[in-house]
């Protein structure tokens, strides 16, 4: 690893460490083994170092572009149409009961 470029702005304190990566994994609902965590921290840090190339650009007057075309929200007439076949959908679900998806308890457990 090359020494991180220390910017004068507030990003200097954002070098990744295992604790940050572990928190991101929790947010993403991923469980990483200790080895995976080490590799992930190293790889993500390397990428983020590379991505600092855009820090030299003056973006203060640039409007963000979330998607390419000037699309507007699309509305169509509210006409009843057949939906997906419920049996066909539930047949490929991991677990179903009483015509619904079945999941483990959502309350009563503390993380």
């Amino acid at each position, binding site marked *: 690893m090359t020494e991180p470029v220390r910017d004068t702005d507030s*990003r200097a304190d*954002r070098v*990744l460490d295992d604790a*940050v*990566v572990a928190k*991101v*994994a929790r*947010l*993403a*609902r*991923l*469980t*990483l083994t200790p080895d*995976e965590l080490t590799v*992930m921290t190293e*790889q*993500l840090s*390397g*990428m*983020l170092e*590379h*991505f600092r*190339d*855009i*820090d030299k*650009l003056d*973006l203060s007057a*640039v*409007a*963000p*572009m*979330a*998607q*390419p*075309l000037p*699309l507007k*929200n*699309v509305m*169509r007439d509210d006409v009843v149409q057949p939906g*997906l*076949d419920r049996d*066909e*959908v539930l047949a*490929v*679900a*991991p*677990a179903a009961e009483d015509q619904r*998806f079945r*999941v*483990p*308890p*959502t309350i*009563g*457990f503390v*993380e």
Partner: protein
Amino acid sequence: MVPRFASVLDIARDIREGATSATRVLEEHLSRIDAREGEIHAFNLVTRDEALASAARIDADIAAGKPVGPLAGVPIALKDNMCTRGVPTTCSSKILEGWKPPYNATVVTKLHDAGAIVVGKTNLDEFAMGSSTENSAFGPTRNPLDTSRVPGGSSGGSAAAVAAGFAAASLGSDTGGSIRQPAALCGLVGVKPTYGLVSRQGLIAFASSLDQIGPFTHTVADAALLMEVIGGHDPLDSTSLPNAAPQLGVVLDRGVEGLRIGRVVDMPSGSEPEVLARLEAAFAALEAAGATVVDVRLPSLEYGLTAYYLVAPAEASSNLARYDGVRYGMRVDAPDLNAMYAATRSAGFGAEVKRRIMLGTYALSAGYYDAYYGKALKVRRLIADDFAAAYGSCDVVLTPTSPTVAFPFGDKTADPLAMYLCDVFTIPTNLAGHAAMSVPFGTGAHGLPVGVQVLAPALGEETMFRVAAALERAS
């Protein structure tokens, strides 16, 4: 060089005119699959029985004098991230293994309506994340032109299927180059249409503001026909443009006289010399055909990689949140819901998918959003503005498709960034939402094919295909 298999147009004409039958054509393709698929691994699934039944129906329709579609009897392969009703669709991920979608993607319906025969679902980098098809949970695909090398990715199976003669054409998806780069590495034509020109309904989402479906073919004319079949407005995709499918077959003979071809003077470095030599030969060929080469600047191009590898993982981390073990795919049981989510996702996703979900989740998380995702969106604007300025003085831009020819297995798997650099020339188009295609134009190192990329503004497909056809005539 790439073996010359029959074109889509020739196959369709011969079947329509009774010179051959859909069944005979399909059997020829299936026999090539039988001979080489074990070595190539282009497919996750070959739908042999369904294909034979479809071919028999086409033959019966033709015998009965019924009108048939423009692709009647043409064997076509689908990237395994396009939903096919009742037929497993995996995205080459363990998390979707065995899942049978309850509906067809719009492009699948359009292919069926045009009479095409779907021969199978092709291998890809898991969830289309990769540039070599080495990230598939079901093993890599090999390049039919040199089986010690990758076919490119992420649509490597779709490219290999056409290059090996397993299908006359195929569909892939292109988020940052996943059609054009494997097309270049396998010696094929590959098209990334303008964002919104082809419906994404039923394409399993990777990065929704970048994804687009397009064809792999042996010829530019075949690609034009495929575009006419799969393009056009779809009310089921809210990002679908209102435009009808472009009519591209009729423009191919119009030549390039008077067209202005952009040469990027500040192009990112790192390409193989043989690749750059082919690009120069392409400029010369177009000049000889009456076009003018003009210098253009795209100063933000070099930042495309950073913008893309923040935007795409951010969108992916959101899109892939749906794989939670509830509605489809695998589930790893756990005592409560949150533990089930984490257990399922940790077992179901491969390393590259996890890496991108982590990167995207980080880029979107509180405290880092402005510094990463927010900045990347601004760089995206700069890149689109650069293209807009360039297209003020030229009609299309030519670059290499890939900095290198097909590389050996394992060459770039140890360093994710090295793999990401494969996409340096293809990524900017997706960020801008423009059209681009790769056209085979001779060979480079090791006698392997080189692709030249033709970039055009949004809805610039007509001009793009004219240039592609001129390059094909000159190659």
